[in-house]
């Protein structure tokens, strides 16, 4: 790498960091969605305790800053749980917990947005609650959940920038590193801004198209 021209070296560096940002965000979204989906089912169940617990979880993790949650995990894992983990693990755990809070709400709202009549129709043909939920309601809820989930992914991409604060090398930290190396602040920030913008803006346009498509059918 050292023999390559400087521009190429920096390009490679930024692209690698962008890739890490994308991977971290995707991981958070997928894992957070899995947990959030589970929680949403508990949230709409008739079990008062489970419903309230998941409600509290969602309210707490959505209603507090990600940065604070990040620090809690950062300080908590080694001190309280005696776990010596990498910055990546710290960040991943924190973002997964945070995302799960939002996804719980998104899935809950999507399930409840499915027309009541679908439940009635399912029951009328003899289905149980679980059958109605799994075979009829959830498939429809998934379609309703796509636009807000895409929106959440865009949020996660931006929120991943906070990982730079505890030293994790993602796109923002890459920018800070290049800034230190080149003393050219504007160059570094401009590249970082452009990269974030390109990714998030294209996703946001794609999300709008998807939403229109889903509305048509």
């Amino acid at each position, binding site marked *: 790498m050292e023999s390559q021209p400087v521009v190429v070296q920096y390009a490679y560096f930024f692209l690698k960091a962008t890739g890490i940002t994308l991977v971290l965000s995707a991981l958070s979204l997928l894992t957070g969605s899995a947990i959030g989906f589970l929680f949403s089912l508990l949230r709409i169940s008739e079990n008062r305790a489970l419903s309230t617990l998941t409600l509290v979880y969602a309210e707490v993790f959505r209603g507090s*800053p990600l940065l604070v949650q990040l620090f809690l995990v950062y300080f*908590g894992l080694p001190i309280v749980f005696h776990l010596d983990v990498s910055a990546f693990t710290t960040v991943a755990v924190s973002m997964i917990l945070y995302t799960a809070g939002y996804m719980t709400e998104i899935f809950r709202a999507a399930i409840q947005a499915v027309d009541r009549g679908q439940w009635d129709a399912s029951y009328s043909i003899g289905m149980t609650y679980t059958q109605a939920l799994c075979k009829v309601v959830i498939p429809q809820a998934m379609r309703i959940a796509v636009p807000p989930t895409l929106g959440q992914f865009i949020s996660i991409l931006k929120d991943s920038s906070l990982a730079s*604060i505890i030293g994790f090398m993602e796109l923002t930290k890459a920018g800070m590193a290049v800034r230190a190396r080149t003393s050219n*602040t504007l160059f570094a*920030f401009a590249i970082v801004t452009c990269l*974030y*913008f390109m990714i998030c803006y294209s996703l946001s346009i794609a999300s709008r198209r998807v939403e229109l498509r889903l509305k048509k059918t």
Partner: protein
Amino acid sequence: MTGRYTFDFSAILRYWPELVQGVWIAASLSVLTFLLGTAFGIFGAIGRISRRRWIYGISTFYVELFRNTPLLVQLYIAYYGLETLSIKLNAFTAALLAMSLNSGAYETEIIRGGIIAVGKGQIEAAFSLGMTYTQTLRKVVIPYALQVIFPPLGNQFIGIILGSSVASVITVPEITYVGLNIGSRSYRDFETFLVIWVIYIALNVVLSALFKLCGRIAFRPIL
């Protein structure tokens, strides 16, 4: 190092004056951000519904730029970036600038949503009565739009307070910054941040309830 961790909150609770200071800074930063952001939002919304191409273009560019880049990067640019252009802002001002521009982009869409929600019908009815453009705006559009945008603006304000935690990174002495400070001095970072966490959650709960109450009092039911 095995064995259970012993929690010790007393070590940090004696720093409560600093915590209060931090809350005060966060609150003032948030209120100012909201006010400035609303101003930007009003201009932005007017721009976004304008029929003139260049006004629409600039306002759309503003909204998309600030909504598709992280607040952290915007803060860094305001604090470190502007410095290289010989504009040296103190931490609070830099944070205010970045956060209000950021919030303004979101508020633009909220306010625009409120204006659109009014609907052609009411506006045509007002015109048919002979009302001028300005009269229609003042007596029909704005009262209705205010009602529509009140809840999302309330949420936006709470979002600003939670987002203010990021300002700690550019040394604004708000709650999170104070927390880092206390944590390092007391060697009790985890307990400190538990307390910080609770403070933010409490702020959220109280403000949410307050806004709901205000909304109910100020606006008579329309639906």
